Structures are given as C-alpha cells and as structure tokens.
C-alpha cells in the first residue's frame, strides 16, 4: 500500500475526530448542568432559575448542532477510509455502534426536540424528564463508541476465524466490561464534565468582570464550580485507573508518555521536562535536556506499587530476558509465521487438502496474538512518536491539576466571600475555557498517537487497515473537511459569543 495513503487517511481521521471532540465534551457535561438547573427551577418555581436554564440551553443547542454535524462522518469514516479494518473487526466493532444507535441516539434526538420546543407544549415534569434524558442519552452515546475504542486498544472477547479472515465476537460482556473500555469511558465523560464546568464558570466570570448579570452569574458560578470540583476529582481517579490499564496492556505507550527508554524499578514521573531531540532508541544520549522528577510516582501510578519495574522502550523493543520481556523481533518472527500460516491455510483449503489446512491452522492459532507484527518491517516500528505522546500527556495532566485547583478556590470564594472582587482569578477562569479544550484534545493525542503503529493493538497496523484508494482522493476529501469544518467552527464561535454577549436577559 502506498505510504502517503496511510498518512492522509490518518490525517483525515485525526482532523475529523479532533473537530468532533471540540463539541462533544460540552454536550456531555452541559446536558447535566442544564438538567440540574431545570430541576432547581421545577422544585422552587423560581423564574430566575428558569431563565438560567434557558440561557445555558441555548448555548447547549448551538454546540449540539455542530457536534451532530461533525459526528455523522465519524461513523461512516471507518468504512470509507478504513475498509480493511472494518472487515477485520466489523463483527465486534459494529455491534456497539448499532446498539448505540438503538439505545442512545434516538433518546438524545427525540427528547432534544421536546427540550427546545416543548416549554409550552408539554407539562413541566415531562419537560424536565426530557432534559435529563437528553443528558443521559448523550452520555450513553459516548459509552458505546468508547467501548469500541477501548477494544481497539485492548482486543478481548473474540476469536480469529481463518475462513472469514476476520475476528469474530465470542463474548459481548467481555467486550463491554473490558477494564480498558470502562476506564476509558469514565475518564472521557469525566473530561466532558470538567470541560462543561470550565465553560460555565468561565462565562460567569466574564459577566462578573463586566459587572453585568451579577446575580445570574454568581448562581451559575456556584453550580459550575461545584459540578467541576466533584467531577475533576472523579477525573483524577479515572485517570489513575486509565494509566494503570495502559501500564498493563500497552506498556510501549506508557514508556512513550514518560519518555522512558531504560526500564527501572522505583521509577519516577517527570513532572516538568524537555526531551532531548537527539535521543533515539539506539543511541546512549540522555533522554532529557532538563527534567524535574517525582520519585517512585511512575511505579506507583502504573502498577500501584512503588517498587514495581516499569519497562522502558529499549526493553520493549530489544527484549529483556531477566524481566521476561520478549523482543519485538521475536514478535515479528512469530507474526510472520502467523501471516504465512493464514496464506497456507487459504491455499490448502482451496486445494481441498484438509491435512495441510489443519497444520496451518495450528501454527496460526499458536502465533495469532502477534499477527499484526507480521506486517512490520523493523522492531523500531513499534515505538510511537515519543515527543508528541510525552508532551500531550504532560499538558493534559498539568492542566487537569490546574482545573481542580481553580474549581476549589472559585467555590470557596463564592461561598465565603464576594467573588467579584477577585478579578485576577476571574480572568484566569475565563482563559481556562480554551485550556480545557487543549487538555481534552491532548488526552486523545496520548490515547491515539501513543498506540501507533496499531489500528488494533498487536493485530493490525494502520498501514494494513486503510482502504485501498489513491491518496489523491483522500487528500482532496481531507481539504474538503478542513474547509467545511473550519467555516462551521467560525460560525459556531461567532454565534456562541454573540449569544453570550446578549446574555440571559436579552434573548432566549
């Protein structure tokens, strides 16, 4: 397959996924925040809370529309650009997507209409239930697609069938409750809740800085900061579990996240660091130009044991007999056996030679877990882009820490003091909105760049997964998406900022 094709296919997927991810987190979190506000309105009957609900709902809708627009392409892009992948795993991957459609999307879209147009058409309670169902529905949508993503990082519950040349599901529950999928789901929706809280406290802070809509802004601030503080603690916990899962299931990714070349026990985490650009896997340069390390932290984070051995990239590429880690070359050799055995099997079956077919099948089964390695050319190929993964991970973690601190202090000051007096803090809250988006995107970069070269961990590298098509086609569609999504994003931001300027009093 031509090399540019894979790059363009990846670029297009990254582009569309990252655009989609600008809008999803707000939908995930703001849905619940709006539902909480409306619950208070229904309970108290206060018009103030109704106005607040309607204002945040308007912003929710502006964001929701473009989230839907950028979302539809994601579902079909597995087919259009990753056709081989789609066949190879479609028997597992398709099911969560279909269940998502049946259970989640209809809930979201049906009650979305009630939530927006039903104020005077249905009763108060029915309306409130609808708002909650929109929030629950959108979070359920996230569940199924993240289960699918979790499966790609850690394939479970399936068996390879050489007759159909694909993986077939044998245990749905194992797919659904895979520890990687669960951790991924919790951490991802958690990040959505934090993003939405940042959005609410940031906009409220802007009103306070302008000295307008003060009562509204203070109330919104309390809701946002409370929700934000609770969910950012949840985010820390789910992040810890995610890292633990990465350590167990994708040690190469963990090593790249930390720029760890030589494995060690009692490994620390680099809190702040600058990577040495001259460092490669096969030279002895020091990996960092500058670093501040928290001792024991990586062993603790990865394996929940401060003495645990954390393998470095060198151990994983070249093997480490003492620690029982086999080298990538050995895996490539086994992978090549598997790939060859599959070809032999197909040929023998065609020739109706069942004895040979069975022999080939045995070799295939024995080496199947390294099947994807059979397509690699060199052991070094298993190393993802270290710098991208490292910096993305550190940006995400640092910002996550800042957000937790920000929510705590905003909440404290809102309750105990007049928050309007703390202008510097309010300014910081406004600027934390874009930081939230950066943190979220960085998280996905860690997850997806960090698992390169795999489309499906150990089973299928991206080079095999892509649809066979001339790269010019994908290049053209890439620019079409880039243009259209950018135009829509500009429209969205302009509409959103205009509505914020109009404020809760001016419109609906």
């Amino acid at each position, binding site marked *: 397959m031509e090399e540019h094709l894979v790059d363009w296919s990846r670029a297009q997927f990254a582009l569309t996924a990252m655009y989609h991810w600008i809008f999803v987190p707000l939908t995930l979190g703001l849905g619940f925040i709006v539902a909480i506000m409306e619950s208070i309105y229904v309970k108290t009957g206060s018009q103030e809370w109704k106005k607040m609900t309607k204002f945040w709902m*308007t912003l929710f809708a*502006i964001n929701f*529309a*473009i989230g839907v*627009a950028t979302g*539809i*392409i994601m*579902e*079909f892009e*597995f*087919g*259009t650009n*990753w*056709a*081989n992948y*789609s*066949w190879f795993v*479609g*028997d*597992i991957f*398709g*099911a969560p*997507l*279909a269940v998502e*459609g*049946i*259970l989640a*999307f*209809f809930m*979201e*879209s*049906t009650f*979305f*209409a009630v939530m927006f*147009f039903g104020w*005077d*058409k*249905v009763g108060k309670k029915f309306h409130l239930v609808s708002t909650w169902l929109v929030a629950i529905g959108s979070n359920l949508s996230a569940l199924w697609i993240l289960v699918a993503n979790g499966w790609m990082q850690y394939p479970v519950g399936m068996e390879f069938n050489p007759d*159909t*040349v694909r993986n*077939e599901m044998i245990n*749905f529950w194992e797919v659904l409750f895979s520890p990687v999928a669960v951790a991924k789901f919790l951490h991802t929706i958690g990040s959505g809740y934090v993003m939405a809280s940042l959005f609410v406290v940031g906009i409220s802070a802007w009103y306070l800085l302008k000295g307008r809509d003060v009562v509204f802004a203070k109330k919104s601030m309390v809701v946002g900061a409370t929700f934000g503080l609770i969910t950012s603690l949840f985010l820390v916990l789910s992040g810890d579990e995610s890292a633990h899962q990465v350590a167990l299931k994708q040690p190469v990714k963990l090593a790249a996240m930390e720029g760890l070349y030589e494995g060690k026990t009692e490994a620390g985490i680099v809190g702040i660091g600058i990577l040495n650009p001259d460092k490669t896997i096969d030279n002895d340069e020091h990996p960092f130009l500058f670093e501040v390390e928290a001792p024991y932290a990586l062993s603790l984070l990865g394996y929940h044991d401060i003495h645990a051995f954390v393998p470095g990239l060198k151990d994983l590429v070249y093997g480490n007999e003492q620690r029982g880690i086999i080298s990538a070359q050995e895996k490539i050799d086994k992978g090549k056996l598997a790939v060859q055995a599959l070809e032999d099997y*197909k040929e023998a079956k065609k020739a109706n030679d069942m004895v040979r077919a069975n022999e080939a099948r045995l070799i295939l089964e024995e080496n199947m877990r390294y099947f994807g390695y059979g397509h690699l050319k060199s052991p070094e190929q298993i190393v993802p882009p270290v710098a991208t993964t490292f910096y993305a991970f550190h940006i995400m973690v640092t910002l996550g820490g800042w957000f937790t601190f920000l929510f705590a202090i905003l909440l404290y000051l809102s309750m105990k003091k007049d928050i309007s007096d703390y202008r510097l803090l309010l300014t910081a809250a406004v600027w934390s909105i874009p930081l939230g988006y950066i943190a979220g995107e960085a998280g996905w970069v860690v997850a997806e760049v960090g698992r390169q070269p795999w489309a499906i961990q150990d089973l299928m590298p991206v080079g095999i997964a892509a*649809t*066979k*098509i001339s790269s010019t*086609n994908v290049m053209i*569609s890439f620019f*079409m998406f880039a243009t*259209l999504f950018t*135009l*829509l994003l500009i*429209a*969205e931001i*302009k*509409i959103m900022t*205009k*509505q914020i300027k*109009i404020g809760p009093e001016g419109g*609906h």
Partner: protein
Amino acid sequence: MGFGDLELLTLQQYWWIIISLLGGLFVFIMFVQGGQTLIDTLSSNETEKTMLINSIGRKWELGFTTLVLFGGALFAAFPLFYSTSFGGAYWVWLSILFCFIIQAVSYEYRTKPDNFLGQKTYEIFLKINGFVGVFLLGVAISTFFSGAEFHLDSNFFVNWDNDLRGLEALLNPFNYLLGFSLVFLARISGALYFISSIDYEPIRDKAVESIKQNMVLFLLFFLSFMAWILTKDGFAVDINGVVVIQEYKYFTNFIEMPIVLGMFIVGVLMVIGAVYTAIVFKKTCCIKTGGVGIVFTVMAIFLNIGFNGTVYYPSVTDLQSSLTIMNSSGSHYTLMTMSYASLMIPFVLGYIALAWYSMDKVKITKEEIESPDAHNY
C-alpha cells in the same frame, strides 16, 4: 428458546428485515428533506417560511438519527457491505455525508445573529441536503440493482475497479430513475407533513397544489424505475453460493414471494390513497397513511433483493464477489447478541411516538411563531 437457537440463515433474514424496515423509515422521514426543498415555494413571506422551517425543524434529528442507525446496523449485521461499499464507492458516500453535515447546523444557525455565513447560505444548505442528498441516496440504492464495480481479495478486502470511486453510478442513466423518484416522493411527503402540522390556510393550499405537480413527476420516474427492474436481468445466487445472472429475477421474486408483492401493492396504494385524500377531501392527517405506505413500499423493494436467493449488492466486474445476505453477514454470535438489542426497537418507536404526539397535538400557528417567547429556528 432464544435467538441463539436460531439458524444463522434465520438471523441473517431477521436482520435483513430490520435493515429493510430502517430503510423504509428513513425514506419516510425524508419528508424533512422534501420539506426543505419547499420552503420558498410554499411561503410568501419570512413568517411563513419560518413556520415551515420550524415545522420540519422539530423532526430533522430523527431523520439524521435514522441514517446513523441505518449505517450502524449495516456495519454490525452486514459488515462486508459496510467495508465494501463505503470504502469502495468512496465519493458517493462522502458526497451524501457532506449533504447531511451541512443540514445539521442549518436549522440552529439560520436566524441566529452574527451567524457568519448568512441566512441565505443556511437555506441553500437545506436545499442541497433536500435535493442532492436525497437524489444521491437514490442513486446509491439503485446500484443494488444495476451493480457496482469491485472485487474482493482473499482477505475480503475491497478493490474498487473504477477510478471514479462510486461516482460512475451517475454515468448509468437508469440510476437516475430512483434518484428522482425519491426527490419527488420526499417533496410529496414534506407537503403532507406541513398540511398536518401547520394550522394555516395559505400554506395548506399551496401544499396541496405542490403535491399535485410532484405526484405526476414522482409517478413518471417511479413507474419507469419499476418497469426497469421488473424487466431487467437480475443477480441470483444458487445453493452452492455461485452467483449467476438470471432473466426477470426481480419480477420472479415478487411472484415467488406473494407476501412481499402484497406489501408492495398495499404500500403503493396507501401512498396514492393518501395523496388522493389530501387533494380531494382536504384531509390533514394523510402523512400517517402515506408514511406507512412509504415504509411498506421501500421494505418490499429491499426484501425483494435480500431474499429468495438474490444478490443485494452485485459486482459487475467480478460476479463472484457479489454480496448476498448469506456471505456478507456478521457471525452467528454477533447477530444473536444484536437481536436481543433489537428487542428495544418497539420501545424506542413507542417513546418517539409519545414525544411526537405530545409535541404535535398543539399545531404550529402564526401566533406561536411570532410570539417573542418562542424558541425558533
């Protein structure tokens, strides 16, 4: 006894019926798309246009969701179709998706202040979605009868044999018949929907007029399409899985599957009946009858090519790569698992109907749209 005890073939047929049902529901809900093409024709001022847009604007997500589910169900139940057709006919599907991407933002952004592209652009987006999106979907489905150019390798990976990557379907004039049929059908159901949901005489009168014109055009294209498929050679598969070309295959299928034929005839008659009642008796509830009729008709056409040893996605460059519901489906386990999930469908349809009923029992009026407190598109 559960789904797990069923034969693989039974599960494949069950899932083809669900796909057919979803296809039918999707074509029905294209009244939103058809309505979008009528927003200027049926209105004489901004308020009337806003009434029209708000009427279908409360339903567009349902159509969108049905499309998404249609894709998801195909991926899960017939993954080989998903990978072959979406990956192969790249440009047809991407073009359709572009037509839907622009729809999703247009309702919400159309009249918002500072919307960057301007109201006119968003209305053009809605029309592109209504005309081009629907037309291309018709063309894409028409290749189920005319065939596509692909072959599968020994890994079942798709190789497309035409550099136009799907757009070559536009070079076959027969494919236009279904494309235009869908466009005019959607305009008819769009008008029927407006009549039922908007309580305002001038719009209702114009809608009736538009139904008359579109019905003539629809019948012209649809009858030609039917004449074409009933007389053409079809793609059949024998018990050994060998694909052959068979004379009058689709006609034969109707004769050999009287239930499907009956469904088709009842469906078509219901659509005609709905249109007749709307025009002659000025009834406002015809979208329901017409809708059921559309679902039946489309289902019957899908069942025709899925059942009775028929190929539903033929390859004209490598006949033996053609897809049938037998050779393109998910495994027994996956189909069984999803069949349990499919038991939720009646429940889902139930709450959609409930929400729909609660919202539509209060008709859209001029007063509501002009009220300052309304959430309008």
